[in-house]
């Protein structure tokens, strides 16, 4: 690991002002950052430790929603009674990720900023990577791409977004609250992540020094929810394909539905087209299939990951079936 400065601010304001310089990084649970620093993928010049900031609360909101502090640990959030009761899709997604040990460390804010598991990104000796070294090229496009994305890719990057939590948050239309040198703002999660385009190293809308303080999850009253994750082994494995479904079903008809996919996109993937297909329709397998086809219409497979197109469709269909059953 390289040398760096270490700061330990006591307030959010201090944290934000400490982190405005180039090369600054916030450190929370460390489960992504420490790993990538060890691999020399991340080489921050300043680390700003946010563990002591008062951001670890889960609070119910007057509108029936939930406010989740950025420092709430994944395991605490997954087992929070309100989350289990009202946001099952989030609890399921959190518990399907990583291992018990990592969930105890990883935080809500950190998870929103989780980096890809693309092996070319994670190994500095593995060849060019536009995300790691902008402008050098993408080794995955013609390399080992079994686990790579099929949605939202560009000629510069096909790295998959790895998170489960973010997929559930996307289906729940969470709002991300940010504090930065220019003040406070909030961003809907669907506007938070950027497509790789020709700048795959820029993954979200955060400006230098900006810190995620908390997340608000709108109420999801009377919805049926499910998170389905398909992967190579039963635990501690990233998704080959996953689907989060939040649906309101009335009299066998889908009143409204939100679908997000994981393991297949360069960002948590909201399937608006699939939702449009289903809205107002009976909850039947034929409509589920039409929705799945719509969700994957733009999919662009590479040499080794064509199976993920079909797998993702089936994942969406099954998640819809379970959620609406």
């Amino acid at each position, binding site marked *: 690991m390289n040398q760096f400065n270490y700061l330990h601010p006591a307030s959010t304001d201090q944290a934000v002002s400490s982190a405005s310089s180039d090369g600054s990084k916030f450190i929370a649970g460390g489960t992504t950052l420490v790993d990538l620093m060890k691999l020399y993928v991340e080489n921050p010049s300043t680390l700003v430790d946010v563990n002591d900031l008062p951001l670890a609360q889960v609070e119910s909101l007057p509108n029936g929603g939930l406010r989740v502090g950025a420092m709430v640990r994944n395991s605490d959030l997954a087992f929070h009674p309100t989350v289990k009761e009202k946001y099952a899709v989030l609890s399921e997604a959190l518990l399907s990720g990583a291992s018990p040990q990592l969930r105890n460390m990883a935080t809500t804010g950190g998870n929103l900023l989780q980096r890809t598991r693309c092996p070319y990104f*994670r190994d500095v000796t593995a060849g060019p990577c536009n995300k790691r070294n902008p402008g050098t090229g993408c080794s995955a496009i013609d390399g080992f791409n079994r686990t790579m994305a099929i949605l939202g890719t560009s000629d510069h990057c096909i790295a998959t977004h790895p998170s489960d939590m973010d997929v559930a948050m996307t289906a729940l239309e969470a709002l991300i609250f940010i504090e930065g040198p220019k003040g406070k703002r909030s961003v809907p999660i669907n506007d938070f992540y950027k497509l790789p385009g020709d700048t795959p190293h820029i993954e979200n809308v955060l400006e230098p020094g900006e810190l995620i303080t908390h997340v608000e999850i709108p109420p999801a009253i009377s919805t049926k929810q499910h998170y389905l994750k398909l992967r190579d*082994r039963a635990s501690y494995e990233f998704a080959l394909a996953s689907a989060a479904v939040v649906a309101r079903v009335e009299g066998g008809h889908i009143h409204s539905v939100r679908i997000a996919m994981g393991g297949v996109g360069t960002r948590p993937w909201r399937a608006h087209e699939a939702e449009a297909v289903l809205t107002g329709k009976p909850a039947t397998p034929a409509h589920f299939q039409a929705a799945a086809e719509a969700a994957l219409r733009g999919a662009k497979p590479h040499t080794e990951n064509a199976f993920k197109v079909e797998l993702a469709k089936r994942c969406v269909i099954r998640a819809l079936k379970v959620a609406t059953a």
Partner: protein
Amino acid sequence: MTDDSTNPAQRRVVGTPQIRKEGAEKVLGRAKYVDDIEFPGMWHGATVRSTIPRGRILAIHFDESVPWHEFVIVTAADIPGNNHIQMIAADQPCLADGAVNHCDEPILLIAHPDKRLLPQAVASVRIDYEELPAVLSIEESESKREIIWGADTSTPNVFKEFVLQKGNVDEAWSSAACIVEGEYSTGAQEHLYIENNGMIADYSDDGGITVWGSLQCPFYVHKSLMAVFNLPEDKVRVIQTETGGAFGGKEDYPSIIASHAALLALKARRPIKMIYDRMEDLAATTKRHPSRTRHRTAVDKDGKLLAMEIEIATDGGAYSTLSSTVLSRATLHATGPYVCPNIRIRSRAWATNTVPYGAFRGFGAPQTIFAIERHMEHIALAVGMDPVELRRRNFLHDGDTTATQQIMREPVILDQLLDRALAVSDFYAKRERYARENATNPVKCGIGIAAFYHGSGFTGSGERRLNSLAGVDVTLQGKVRVLVSSTEFGQGTNTILAQIAAEALGISYDDVEMAPSDTHLIPNSGPTVASRTSMVVGHLIQRSGRQLIQTLKEAANLSDNYTRHDFFAACELLRARDGEVKSLSRYEAPPNIYWNDDTYTGEAYPAFAWAVYVAEVAVDTITYSAEVIDFHTVQEVGTVLNPTLAAGQIEGGVAQGIGYALYEKVQLKNGHMFNNQMTNYIMPTAQDVPPIHVYFEQIPFAYGAFGAKGIGELPHDGPAPAILNAIQNATGESFSAIPLLPEDIFLRFASYGLDPENITA
């Protein structure tokens, strides 16, 4: 001496679940693995490795940003002796000298007091190469477009070739009712011991070299160090530290890392510790040999095997290492546990520009057993016969001869094992139920079987050549010590050898301890490999114990009905006479064991362990995932010395076999393991293993310790074919290659299209 006279009912120690000798130290966290050991003034070592698969080294550049004067640097020029690792042949350099033949080949070594500075320093050495075309697969090696090994031999690119003949295959084809052909392939597999390879070395002019490390075979390392340093026997000392898993992965590789650590120690004149991190261990150390096996089989209308023609090819990597002996065992297990009058096997180990493949539990047998046990399924289909029945009709029995014309002198109870396996797994009822339910269920369940043997001990004349010596002594503190070079790495060597000694001496388990695993203190009882420790070394301990009792009776008037107190009192009388109380035994081959290395005929193994395994799977045709849902094992391994440890061997081997079949894929890029992290080379977790049921039949083997045969490797042989047979039963689809990943299953089912009605919650 045989144990026919020993009445199992009177045994007190053998056959009981004694607590693991070193167990308390392990659960307390006090057991000392190599990385737990520190010496004053110790530095840390690291390795600069090749980044290309084949080429000539033109220049080595040291980046000026690194204060190199603080480092010790070792190249091939610093090697005082022979720049080769002593294995079967001496073709593998200790450090590359002018040329590299695989990615991650060691080129130079560096050491520094601060281990945190080493990664950056390694990255700051740049090597210029003239790249040469690389050979990266068996097929490319076979094509001989590039000759990368043995250019001066009659079989270039071939490390070893065997041809086995029995009867006359060519005459059998015409009389066959059916001829069945098939090709089967297996991938590389990583041991994934949780403790990486590691070694500490020290050098002094008086004492020579001492190494401490994680290893299976102290005298293999000893032999290599003698050659690399040109030192006599007594100037090289190898001490095994607690070893955190091995599975064959610490049979050959420790000779390399020990040489490296010792070269640095010699130059730095201080202790050097080298511990690989996971990425380096995965990239640079040995794996299971990938293989391709082709079968052509003639059967009559009743399903009897008439002729078997088998062609085996393994990928040996860049140097010969253990490829010839792995190929030998692959060849000798290729026919499965079946009798056939006409057999021809041709097997070859090919050179490629990849990291040398090495020993891994099963040692070639899992590869060819996968092939034959999948092939039997195809034969059954071709002749329209139940695959269980087809196997039964062709099982070896007492008196039959194998491919090497070895006569089965010991009882063979395959029918009994099969019957029990069918019964405990409820095989037929389940097969019927699954077939019924599969018609309407998109999750298809299936049940599959594999029957197999595993030869115990070294192949052919191997044990005679090893000429092992082992025994016991008695310390002044009143403890019996077991004197062996056989090592503990989780499989239970310490415990079972102590049980054998206690039983043979008529004392308690707690009276016995292991002598330190230190080449200065122990005799060479051979390597800890080949499922030989219980049977061969254990038998030497038993004989030594009996011999000591005999001596005590003659020299110290030990009575027939002696107590523990009498025993130790007699030992002290003997010590007063002889100065020590020690009894050693040297290997003696059982009678009727003959082997011809030229024709590859005779007694391939003194004994075989036998097994029938039943796997049950659920294949989700929606998601393409195949899951093992239940697993039954029935085996005959001679006497079970310790039921807890024995079951633990079977369960662990089955889990590794499940990984081999369905999870573990080594992805090579230019011969470099690309997925060299635990996050992308995945083994089964606690949530992936099915229930594993273990049943033993016991037929004592007259020349094994209290009747024991080998057990350690057997359980890795059966799971992969049993699982793929179950998948065939579940889906009707036949797969011939492992690892079998979801996308492989997908490719078959994708063409069937998707009926969304069938996607169930």
